[in-house]
């Protein structure tokens, strides 16, 4: 496993406590995570080099005294830990067909009804007979079925690569307090030794 002691590159615990929030965690590459300090646009959206994400308070988590939103790169909505866990449990228990059926039902309702309220009414009405999937799970599926921002992200990515758009962007969160604390200890010892000679204890020197 990985090394235990680290000065740089570890999870920024103190930054989480002391930075203003919210902080967003984005799953970028294959099993790779990035942290960003969110600069809110109109209180609801966040612009990063990967595109625009939506801050939805329903899926906000509290970690180390700060707000945390978890995103997958391909969805503008934050990930619900409970929702995705439930779906994985269906896969684990060989009940993935339930999810497929529900998604198909949501699809059909969206196609048949242009009014979202009518579509939702049909979806929730049909779901009443289901015992395995709760209405909260259905809501999670609807959220993920109807919000998607793939093209929006790509629209701004190319131009961002050419320039240096620092202003207004959500910056990354890296751990720098551990190095500062370590350096502080070292410098403190140096200053202490400057005024106090430890050899005096043993009667050596002047």
């Amino acid at each position: 496993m990985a090394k235990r002691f680290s000065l740089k590159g570890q999870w920024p615990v103190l930054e989480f406590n002391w930075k203003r929030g919210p902080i967003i965690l984005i799953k970028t590459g294959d099993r790779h995570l990035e942290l960003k300090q969110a600069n809110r646009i109109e209180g609801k959206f966040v612009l990063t080099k990967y595109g625009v994400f939506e801050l939805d308070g329903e899926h906000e988590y509290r970690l180390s005294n700060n707000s945390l939103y978890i995103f997958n790169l391909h969805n503008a909505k934050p990930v619900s830990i409970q929702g995705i866990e439930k779906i994985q449990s269906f896969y684990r228990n060989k009940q993935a067909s339930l999810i497929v059926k529900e998604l198909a039902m949501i699809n059909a309702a969206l196609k048949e009804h242009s009014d979202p309220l009518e579509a939702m009414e049909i979806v929730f009405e049909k779901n009443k007979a289901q015992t395995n999937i709760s209405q909260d799970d259905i809501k999670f599926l609807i959220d993920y079925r109807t919000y998607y921002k793939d093209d929006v992200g790509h629209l701004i990515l190319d131009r961002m690569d050419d320039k240096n758009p620092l202003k207004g962007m959500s910056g990354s969160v890296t751990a720098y307090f551990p190095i500062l604390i370590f350096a502080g200890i070292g410098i403190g010892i140096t200053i202490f030794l400057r005024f106090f000679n430890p050899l005096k204890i043993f009667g050596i020197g002047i």
Partner: protein
Amino acid sequence: MIWPSSNDWGLVFYGGPLAHILVKKNIMVSKKIQLMRDYFVNEFGVFKIDSETQYHFNKQAIFFYNAHDTRFSKKIAKKINKLYAKHKDLEILEILKANFKEIQNTESIFEAFEKIIEGTNHYPIDLDTDKYLPFFTARKPKGTKLLMEFANQGTKAIETLYPSVIPKLPIIVVMVGVLVFFLIYKDIPEWIRQAQQFMGVG
């Protein structure tokens, strides 16, 4: 500013595997992982790790879990970790059997861990929604319109930007520079005098 908890201070210099555990509805806690093959134990219960759900923040391994409101004695969890380091599996099994009814017939600790996890559902959570919900192609027109508006605003704003001419100095370099200056500034006049003597100016 809120002072970090003792758990947070314990993670400041920690670069090993880390578990983010959802302990209440939206409260997450970061915990160190002390591995026992594919399992680990802490005060929230027994958890399983899976290489498929091992995320990386730089080089640190990160896992996500939901504790499902389960609690375990902190003292017992510490004791189990210590006993595992000493290879005392039988003692661990005894402790587990005393605390969990469903594992009375198990013969190894890993079999017992697996059974406990089956009951508590402490499997790692995969954030990869694409893997489990593979076809999100439809859009909510209103939501997409709103996002497009913001994206257009962003594109216009980017057009007006230009690359920074003066590179930014990292805060650590600045702080170290200031501290070094404070350490040596008293010696600087002496050094200048010596340099002048050396050059025969003074």
